[in-house]
C-alpha cells in the first residue's frame, strides 16, 4: 500500500532513494551479523561488538593516517592496516570469549553476561578514545573515490563494496550454519547448552571460536565505517544501536532476517529523509521507522516463530 502511495506521490525520488537506502544498509549489516552470531552461541546481547567496531575504526585510522598528535603522518597501506585491525578484533573477541565461556562465567545468569558485555563496550570505548592516537574524520576508502550511478541514485564504490561484503558474508554463514558440522554444533548450543555438552560438543572451543569470528567481523565493520562515517564515537555507537535494532527483526538468531532488517531500515530511513512520501519531520521519521521495524518483528514472530527459525537454521 505504501509502495503504491510512493509511486503516486513522488516516484522520481523512489528509485534513487532505494539505491541510497540499500547502500546505507551496509552501515548496519556487519554489526548485525556479529550480534546474531554471538547471540546464537551465548543467548546474550554482544554489546562488546560495538566496542570492537569503535576500537577497530580508531586503530585503522591510526594505522593509515595517524593523527595530529603523532610525529609522523606516514601510515601503513590499507591492506596491512586492515589485516592488523581485523586480527586485533579477533584477538579481543578471543579474550572476551575465553572469559565468558570459561568455567566460571559460563554458568552465570545471562543478564550478568550481558551486563559484562556492556561494560566491555564501555571499556573499549574508553581505551579507544584515550589511548589510540587517532583524530576524528573519515579515512580514505581502500576502494577509491569512484561512484556508481544506478537508477538515478549515486552510491560510492565503497558503499557498493560494503554491501557486497555483507551479502557474501550472510550467504556464507547461512550455508555454514545449515550445512557444516560446525554450524550444526553452533545451532545445537543455541538450542540447548546442557544437551550439547552431554553429546560431546566442545562448548568452550565452539563458543570461543564464534567470539573470535564475531570480533573479526566487528573490527571489519569498524574499518568500513571509518571510511563511511569517520571515527567519531557517537556516530559509530549510534550505528551499533541501529544494528541491534535490525538484528531484533530476526529474533537475534536469523542472519537473513537481520539482513532484511538492515535493508528495510536503510530504505525506509532514506526514503523518508529524501521526501519520497513527502516532507516528514525528523522526529516523526524515527517514530515511523521504528514502528515499522517493531511491527514487522511482531508479524514475523506470529507467522514463523523464532524457534522454528532456529531449528531450520535459517
Amino acid at each position, binding site marked *: 500500500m505504501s509502495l503504491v502511495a510512493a509511486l503516486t506521490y513522488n516516484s522520481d525520488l523512489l528509485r534513487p532513494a532505494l539505491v541510497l537506502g540499500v547502500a546505507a544498509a551496509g552501515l548496519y549489516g556487519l554489526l548485525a551479523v556479529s550480534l546474531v552470531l554471538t547471540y546464537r552461541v551465548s543467548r546474550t546481547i554482544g554489546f562488546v561488538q560495538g566496542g570492537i567496531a569503535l576500537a577497530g575504526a580508531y586503530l585503522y585510522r591510526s594505522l593509515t593516517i595517524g593523527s595530529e598528535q603523532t610525529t609522523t603522518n606516514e601510515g601503513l597501506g590499507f591492506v596491512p592496516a586492515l589485516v592488523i585491525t581485523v586480527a586485533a578484533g579477533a584477538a579481543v573477541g578471543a579474550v572476551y570469549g575465553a572469559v565468558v565461556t570459561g568455567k566460571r562465567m559460563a554458568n552465570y545468569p545471562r543478564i550478568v553476561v550481558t551486563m559484562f558485555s556492556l561494560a566491555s563496550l*564501555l571499556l573499549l570505548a574508553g581505551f579507544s*578514545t*584515550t589511548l589510540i592516537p587517532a583524530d576524528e574524520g573519515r579515512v580514505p576508502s581502500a576502494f577509491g573515490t569512484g561512484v556508481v550511478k544506478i537508477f538515478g541514485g549515486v552510491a560510492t564504490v565503497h558503499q557498493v563494496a560494503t554491501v557486497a561484503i555483507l551479502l557474501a558474508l550472510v550467504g556464507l554463514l547461512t550455508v555454514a550454519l545449515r550445512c557444516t558440522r560446525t554450524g550444526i554444533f553452533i545451532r545445537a548450543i543455541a538450542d540447548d547448552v546442557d544437551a550439547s555438552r552431554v553429546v560431546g560438543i566442545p562448548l568452550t572451543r565452539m563458543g570461543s571460536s564464534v567470539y573470535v569470528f564475531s570480533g573479526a567481523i566487528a573490527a571489519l565493520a569498524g574499518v568500513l565505517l571509518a571510511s563511511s562515517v569517520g571515527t567519531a564515537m557517537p556516530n559509530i555507537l549510534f550505528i551499533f544501536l541501529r544494528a541491534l535494532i535490525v538484528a531484533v527483526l530476526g529474533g537475534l538468531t536469523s542472519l537473513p532476517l537481520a539482513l532484511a532488517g538492515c535493508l528495510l531500515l536503510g530504505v525506509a530511513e532514506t526514503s523518508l529523509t529524501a521526501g519520497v512520501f513527502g516532507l516528514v519531520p*525528523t522526529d516523526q521519521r524515527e517514530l515511523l521507522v521504528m514502528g515499522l521495524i517493531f511491527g514487522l518483528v511482531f508479524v514475523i514472530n506470529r507467522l514463523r516463530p523464532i524457534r522454528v527459525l532456529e531449528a531450520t537454521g535459517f
Partner: protein
Amino acid sequence: MRSTNRRSRILVGLGLVGALTLAACADGDSTSSTAGGPPKAPTPEAGSPAATDAPSEATEGDAGAAVPNTDAAVSAGGDPSASATPGAPTAGPKSKGGASASTPGAASASSPSGGSGSGSVDSGGVSPGPGGPQAGAPTPRSQTPAASAAASAAKGGATDVGVTDKEIKVGAIYMHGMQLASFMPKPMERLIEAQLRVMNDQGGIHGRKFKYIGCDDGVPDAARTRACYKKLVEQDKIFAFLGGLTFNSGLIQPDIERDKVPALAPGSLYRSEWENPWSFAIHMGMEHEAHAGGQWVVDVLKPKKIGLLCLNNAEMQATCDASTAVMKKAGIKVVHRVTTSAETPDMSGDVLAMRAADPDHIIHYTTHPAATARFMLDASQQDYWPPKGVSGNHMAGEFAGALIGNYPAKHGYWTNTTYKLWGPELVSWSRKYVPDQEGLHNHVMQGQWWSTNVFFDVLKKMGPNVTREGLKQALETGEYTTGPGLDQKFMWSPKGRNAHGTGARREFMYKAVHSDWAATKDAAATPGGLVPDPDRFVIEDTFD
C-alpha cells in the same frame, strides 16, 4: 547457589563501577589535554615554554555520569622566586635553556617583522598581545593605584572570590567529548593555558599568578555542564570564567547572572551570552550572523530560491528562522530546510531531498563543523552542489578545509567569520609559545586569545583591588579593539552590545579557493585556501 549469586552480584557491581569510571575518564581527559597536552607531542623549541609538559595533579574522575571529568588545578609557574628571575627554569613548563617566557619582551606578540598591517599592540600593554581599551576611549572606572593598593591590603589581598594575595583562579568548561574535539576544545584550552603560563612566568599581575581549572562536560551532557558549573563556582570558587566551549553554555547563563561571575571569552554561541551582563561574548551572535550572511546572499549571489541546513537545537532553528525572514523580505523562496544532528552518520537522503528541491544556493547554520562537513561530503559523493554554491557560519578553522575537501571550493563555498583570518599576532605568538597549535586555529580561538589579553590589561589597570564588579565595570567601559590583524572591536556596555560597526553586527565573508585553510608560513599568516570575498568582504547586520 547462593554463593554463586552473591559472587555474580559482586562481579557485576565491580564491572559496572570500573566501566563507568573509565567511561567518565574517556571523554577527553582534561589532564592530558590541559596539562600534558596530546601524547607524543613534539619537543618544544629551546626557549619556548611548552604548553604540553606542565605538571598537574591527577584527575579523579567520578563514577557517576553527572559528575564532570575534572582536572585538578593546573598551577603554572611554580615557585614565584624562580619565575621572577629571567631565564630561570620554572617548575611549570619544561623548557630547554630556560630563556623563555621569563625573558622580558619574549611574550610580546607584536607583529613579526615584515608583516604588513599586522598586530600593532593597541593597548600599549606589556601583555602578550593586543587588546585593552582603545587610546582615547573613556578610562575605565577604577580606583587610583594607591587607593587600590590600600583596599587590597585591607583585605589581606583576598579582594574577592577566587582572589588571594598570591593568585587569581579562573576556570572554563570545555566539551572535550564532542566530535572533532582534538581540533577545537583541546587546542583552544591549550592556548589559554599557555597565555596564563606566560603571564605567570612574567610574575603575574600585581604579584598574583593565575591558577587555571578546567572542566570537561563531555559530548556535552547537560548534567555534566551543570555539575561543572557547580564545581567551578561553588567548590573551586573561581574568580571568573575565562574561555570555554560547550554547546550547553546557554544552560548556565542564568546561573552566571545570578551568581555574578564574570564570563570572559565564552564560546558565544547563544543569544543569552550577549544578553547576560556578566558574559562578555567575543563572537557574533547567531541571529545577527543569519541576518548579515543572508543579506550578503541576497545582494551578492541573488538567488531565486535557497535551501537551509540547520542543526536540531533551538538556537540554530531560530537562526534559520532569522535567515528565512531575510529571504522572505527579499522575495526569495526557501524551498527546502534540512534539520540534522551532529551524530547523523549519513546524510545522503538529505542530499537527495535537497537535489529534488533544487535551490540555487544553500545556507548552513549548524554550529558544529562535523554536521556541515557530513552534508558536504555526502553531497560531493553524489556530485551534487547548488549552482550558486553554499555559504554559512562556523567553518572558519584551519582544519576545516581538509575536512571538506576541494569539492566545495571548486563549486562555490563561502563562510562568514568574526575576525580576519588568522591574525598574524595570534599566529606568531602561538608559533612561538605553543608550537602544537600549528594548523589548529579557529575563529572562536581568535576571540578567546584576544579576550584573554584584554583580561590581563584590565586587571593591570584595576590595580591590586581586583573584584568581580570592578572587572565588569571596566569591561563595560569603552571600546575594545583587536588591532588591524584581527580587525574587530567590541563594546560590552548595555547599549554597546548591539552596536553597529562592532563584532556584534560586523563580520567578514571569505571565499574558499582550495582546501588548505592553514595559515601561510609567512608573516601575514593568511589562510591560503580562503580569500576575502571579492564582491563584499565586510558584511554587517542592518536587517533589524
